[in-house]
């Protein structure tokens, strides 16, 4: 009995906080807009008995999903989100791997401090941190002032309100999610393996590519998913740092809900986004599973 309750807790959690809200969103996505509170029909009317329930289901349709395929805005937004998420994941890996590598090779008494420094930004509000990038990247911002004072550029660079600002924002925000799994993989690595590779004729560089990198692949894959999945639906970063031409599905979703007040279409967008995310999430789970099996 106790075991049953123990297992039940996460399931109840999932049911109440994920499955039920999802079903509500799914239901809204199948509804029609209405000038009412809430702004959609039909509403489930238990008072009318069986007929009420039957009428309720009869009124649901896939109209909103069809609409998503008709307007190019949506699939362009999905594609653009995929692109922005993929590019920023790549840059995050490029920045994160060397940091994780340096941390794993740092002296053992330094490692907790370095780890702390990686996690420290989480103590400040994410919103404030993204906001402060506006001050850095704007035309009169610190970055341009700095580069101009060095004489490297004569005209200020236009970074804010372009996709580049979005990449910078995502790389900055999600960097810890990339560093931590890679660091975990590299830290476990037995130093004798690198020595063995060198002993068998590898240079430092080829020892890295033939031994270190393949053995940290699990961490790299985990880190990429941890960055890619939330970046795909990112809303705050593109709306604060991106420009009018930065098209991301998170932004579209927000506009549908709050500017357009079209809850059913917005819900349809959300449902499709979720379906898109399920693929990488399943791949991620499989990767974790494989890593666990390899450990045994």
């Amino acid at each position, binding site marked *: 009995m106790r075991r049953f309750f123990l297992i039940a807790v996460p399931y109840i959690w999932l049911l109440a906080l994920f499955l039920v809200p999802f079903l509500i969103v799914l239901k809204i996505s199948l509804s029609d807009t209405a000038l009412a509170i809430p702004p959609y029909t039909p509403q489930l009317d238990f008072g009318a008995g069986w007929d009420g329930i039957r009428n309720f289901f009869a009124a649901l349709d896939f109209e909103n999903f069809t609409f998503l395929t008709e307007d190019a805005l949506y699939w362009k937004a999905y594609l653009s989100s995929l692109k922005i998420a993929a590019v920023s994941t790549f840059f995050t890996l490029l920045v994160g791997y060397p940091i994780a590598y340096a941390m794993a090779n740092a002296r053992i008494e330094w490692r907790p401090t370095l780890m702390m420094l990686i996690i420290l930004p989480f103590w400040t509000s994410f919103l404030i941190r993204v906001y402060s990038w506006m001050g850095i990247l704007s035309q009169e911002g610190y970055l341009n002032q700095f580069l101009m004072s060095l004489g490297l550029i004569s005209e200020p660079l236009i970074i804010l309100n372009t996709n580049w600002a979005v990449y910078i924002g995502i790389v900055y925000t999600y960097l810890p999610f990339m560093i931590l799994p890679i660091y975990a993989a590299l830290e476990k690595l037995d130093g004798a393996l690198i*020595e063995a590779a060198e002993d068998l004729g590898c240079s430092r560089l080829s020892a890295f590519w033939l031994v270190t990198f393949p053995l940290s692949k699990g961490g790299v894959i985990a880190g990429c998913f941890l960055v890619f999945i939330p970046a795909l639906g990112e809303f705050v970063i593109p709306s604060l740092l991106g420009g009018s031409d930065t098209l991301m599905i998170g932004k579209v979703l927000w506009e549908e809900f709050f500017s357009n007040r079209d809850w059913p279409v917005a819900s349809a967008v959300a449902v499709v986004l979720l379906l898109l995310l399920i693929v990488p999430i399943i791949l991620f789970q499989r990767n974790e599973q494989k890593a666990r099996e390899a450990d045994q």
Partner: protein
Amino acid sequence: MAQNVFAPWDDPTETPLIQFKGVTKRFGDFVAIDNLTQDIYAREFFALLGPSGCGKTTMMRMLAGFEAPSEGQILIAGTDMAHVPPNLRAVNMMFQSYALFPHLSVWDNIAFGLKRERHTKDAVSARVEEMLKLTRLEKFAKRKPHQISGGQRQRVALARSLAKAPKLLLLDEPLGALDKKLRQDTQFELMDIQEKTGTTFVIVTHDQEEAMTVASRVAVMDEGRIMQVSTPAQIYEAPNSVYVADFIGDVNIIEGTASPSVNGYEVRWAEGHAPLVAKASQVLREGQRISLAIRPEKVSISAEKPENSVNAIEGKIIDIAYLGNLSTYHVEVAGGIMVKAQTANTRRLSRRELTWEDKVWLNWTDTAAVVLEQ
């Protein structure tokens, strides 16, 4: 017919493969190797033996190129190795942890070093097959390291380090992770492979039995210095210091003062007891403080005082350690000194005549004890 004895260290015309010349290695303030000079010859099976922290692993890591000496020179085949990185040395190492690449199969682990050199694919696979055969691993070529047993992993590590046919193979506690039975089998296997391939082996171990079994010469180390280098038999029978005598096998140490007599030296060891008689290879001064080192198996034990024995002392049995084939008697003699005597158990336990608290006589010959100066 006398067999040709392998002893290049006694031949002044031989040039050593490895030369340590005044090598010192410091880690901060800690001196790991202290002004060490030592030659190792080709085809030798050289064992570095000592307690942990004696510098034996540092010596090996300097040969492999993972550490550079702070002072002095290391020469391999006459070339100074100071600026040669590990990947350019004709030296391979078998790591204590085996350090097998977990993401590669047994086959690819063995091929790893060969692929780094310019060989054709066929040459690589022919060499790998040869190594698999030598180490009897043919059946496991496709497995990953975590899918095979400890003993098999040890053989993969050996095959991998031998694949490039190095001039010198370094073995860092190679058998430490194996259980005793497997370890003994593997020791003979190692000797066999060493003989077949003609490679020079340098082995690091803290297990004196292992060093004695496999090595052509054993170097006993302590605190960064080599205390004695000799064949296993010489190290055991003629240790040059109390440290070596004590480190290798079991030994009784009796201290006393020597004075020359007709048959070697008389050693006064306890007030009111007859002096012990010992032969010494060195010349001792009258009244010099010395230690007698006597192996327990060279001490006989009897209930009656033996006749015609030059060294006979009386004592009481305090403890008996029964080891199956042997028994070791711990006998307390004059001055509270404990002397161990070992006898083969040729009789069944029930017929053993000596027991605890018995008064017994210990005796040994005048050549049984080694005289060590203090």
